[in-house]
């Protein structure tokens, strides 16, 4: 039997439908406002250089005993966790009674070229944790690290565990040398010293180009073909544009920190193989003995599950929980399933462990 049976009239209908959508978009694209993000009000509680720590304001008073500080990656903006009213990890956590803070790294410029991982982890994160603890009036807080921010949170916990009650990692790479980790595979032939010595800070456009080439046809073409379907729907179009804005709203990367991260994590895989030092101090995941919740996405093309799953084998804690989410690296925050599954899972896990 023929594998393809496309009626020419049906093909024509498809083309006409697509053209009608295009025609409709001439109106809808003019109706949509310049999309904004952030569903939840927040207040600044700490500022240092370009780093700002915010506290999100919930509708009611938090009922949780200790606050959560979200530590996002450096490579994208943190508002992904509070993108819009119906797609917000933050909003859902607040509704469950959690007290949520977040570190906004800002946009590094030439003045930040020499920031190291020591500056980020033993400096900014440590002082942000102290600021949150002081603001909330507690001795220890909960840390929630996302992606690269998760790797930073692991290092921070290994070095400053006394400041934390619980650690949650989301889509966090731990073993960088698994076979399906395309990003890591590509970095291993790079002379990162030459790279950073030449570029200084790593331009965001270069980073975005690299991410797009992980799935070039799907991310650079198929996604926009699918956009044709929603061109006549103002709400869907705004959702799409908001996501686009987030994807390409990327800060440059501070050169020295980038050099260290690529060398020690992507090339050296030192979180797993050992020998990692941050600011001259040994970082061993075995030192992490507090409760750990590790959430990863099963269809993640940036941090494959194989890179995130091994955390349990390397931390020293006896209280380790992992949650495999059916979705991708972004879907874990913005999909409908994520809204239903992820915040309650975090809340329930914390409720059993926070004193």
């Amino acid at each position, binding site marked *: 039997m023929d*594998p393809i049976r496309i009626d020419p009239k049906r093909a024509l209908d498809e083309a006409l439908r697509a053209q009608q959508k295009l025609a409709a978009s001439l109106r809808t694209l003019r109706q949509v406002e310049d999309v904004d993000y952030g569903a939840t009000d927040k207040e600044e509680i700490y500022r240092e250089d370009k780093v700002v720590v915010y506290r999100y304001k919930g509708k009611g008073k938090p009922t949780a005993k200790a606050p959560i500080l979200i530590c996002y990656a450096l490579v994208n903006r943190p508002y992904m966790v509070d993108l819009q009213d119906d797609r917000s990890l933050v909003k859902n956590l607040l509704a469950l009674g959690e007290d949520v803070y977040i570190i906004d790294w800002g946009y590094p410029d030439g003045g930040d070229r020499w920031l190291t991982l020591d500056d980020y982890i033993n400096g900014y994160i440590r002082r942000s944790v102290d600021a949150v603890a002081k603001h909330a009036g507690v001795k220890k807080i909960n840390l929630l690290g996302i992606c690269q921010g998760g790797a930073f949170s692991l290092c921070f916990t290994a070095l400053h565990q006394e400041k934390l009650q619980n650690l949650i990692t989301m889509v966090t790479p731990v073993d960088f040398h698994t076979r*399906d980790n395309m990003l890591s595979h590509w970095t291993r*032939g790079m002379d990162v010293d030459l790279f950073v010595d*030449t570029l200084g800070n790593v331009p965001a456009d270069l980073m975005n180009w690299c991410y797009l080439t992980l799935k070039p046809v799907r991310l650079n073409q198929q996604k926009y073909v699918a956009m044709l379907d929603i061109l006549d729907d103002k709400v869907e179009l705004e959702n799409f544009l908001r996501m686009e804005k987030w994807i390409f709203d990327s800060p440059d990367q501070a050169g020295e920190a980038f050099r260290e991260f690529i060398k020690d994590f992507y090339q050296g895989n030192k979180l797993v193989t050992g020998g990692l030092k941050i600011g001259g101090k040994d970082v061993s995941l075995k030192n992490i003995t507090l409760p750990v919740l590790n959430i990863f996405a099963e269809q993640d093309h940036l941090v494959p599950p194989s890179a995130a799953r091994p955390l349990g084998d390397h931390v020293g804690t006896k209280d380790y929980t992992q949650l495999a989410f059916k979705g991708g690296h972004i879907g874990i925050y913005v999909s409908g399933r994520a809204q239903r599954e992820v915040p309650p899972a975090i809340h329930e896990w914390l409720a059993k462990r926070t004193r």
Partner: protein
Amino acid sequence: MAKDHGATRTLEDWQKTSRQYWEAWSDATRKAFGGTADATSPDQMPWHEGLEQWSRMFDAGKAQNAQSETVERLLAGARSYFALLQSMADQSSQGNADPQAWTESLRNAFNFPGADAALVDNPLARAMRELSGSGAKGFEQMMEGLQPALREVRAMLDLPAFGYAREHQEQHQRMAKAWLDYQQETNRYNTLIARASKRAFELFEDKLAERGEPGRQVDSVRGLYDLWVDAAEDGYAEVALSDEFREVYGALVNAQMRVRQAMQKEVEKISNDLGMPTRTEIDSIGKRVHELHRASRNRAEDDAALRAEIAALRAEVEQLTGTRPIAAQPQGASIRKRATKPATKSSKE
């Protein structure tokens, strides 16, 4: 004769549907925007031209800046899709059932004429073009043929420099060599992308073969397009995860950095000649400022810790000597009191 008659009728039907398509498009745009689509030679007009017209109308209406980038991406992605729509409709109108013919038709659809020439300098677009274009077929052989010429240019660059401008000449030679190396690594990269393209079409044929069973047939152009995307990504991933790709990718990035460094050196020389600050000088200053900033912050933290420790010790001393805890007193008062009292040993000593 009957066959010829049938073919003529199919062609007429096809021309009729194409005309309907353009009339409908003109009608839709008129209603939505008050504009008019070009109505010349609808039978000959490529379908993605509708998209180009849309683009022109969109530009004319001055899109908001925040969305215009997305619109550009939409255009780039949808052009291929419209070319595919036309190609597939054309193919099905001929009643062709051979999967290989479909595959070739698909290959041609992605190689449509009128592609934006500006995209050629975009590495990803170039990679995309070669991922899908049949023109990439003989790429490896072509690069093989160019090797002798490249070797000759390289040999000339190895000639010794001498005289007053020797250093300058050597720098230019280094820059030219770096550029040639970069070209060579780009070619190696493109060769692998071409291999991924070839593999994508092989996988596409496999995926099509799996759809021969009843109930699994592809019955829409979008379905076919999505199937091709799956095959393209699978083919690309196979190549991109290979050890060879890792080596080539690293070499390409490193070669590009060497070109940039050579150019930066040239700019530094010019800046020096003009008495302007150079990147090296600014980096050096930036590094010193950063180190000072870090040292001052560490000192501030150390000072704060010391102050806290002193306060705690004072409080302990006050308790041991029977006076009120220091926290309950104004700081000046406590200092005055301390100054009038004889020193007492604290438990910490």
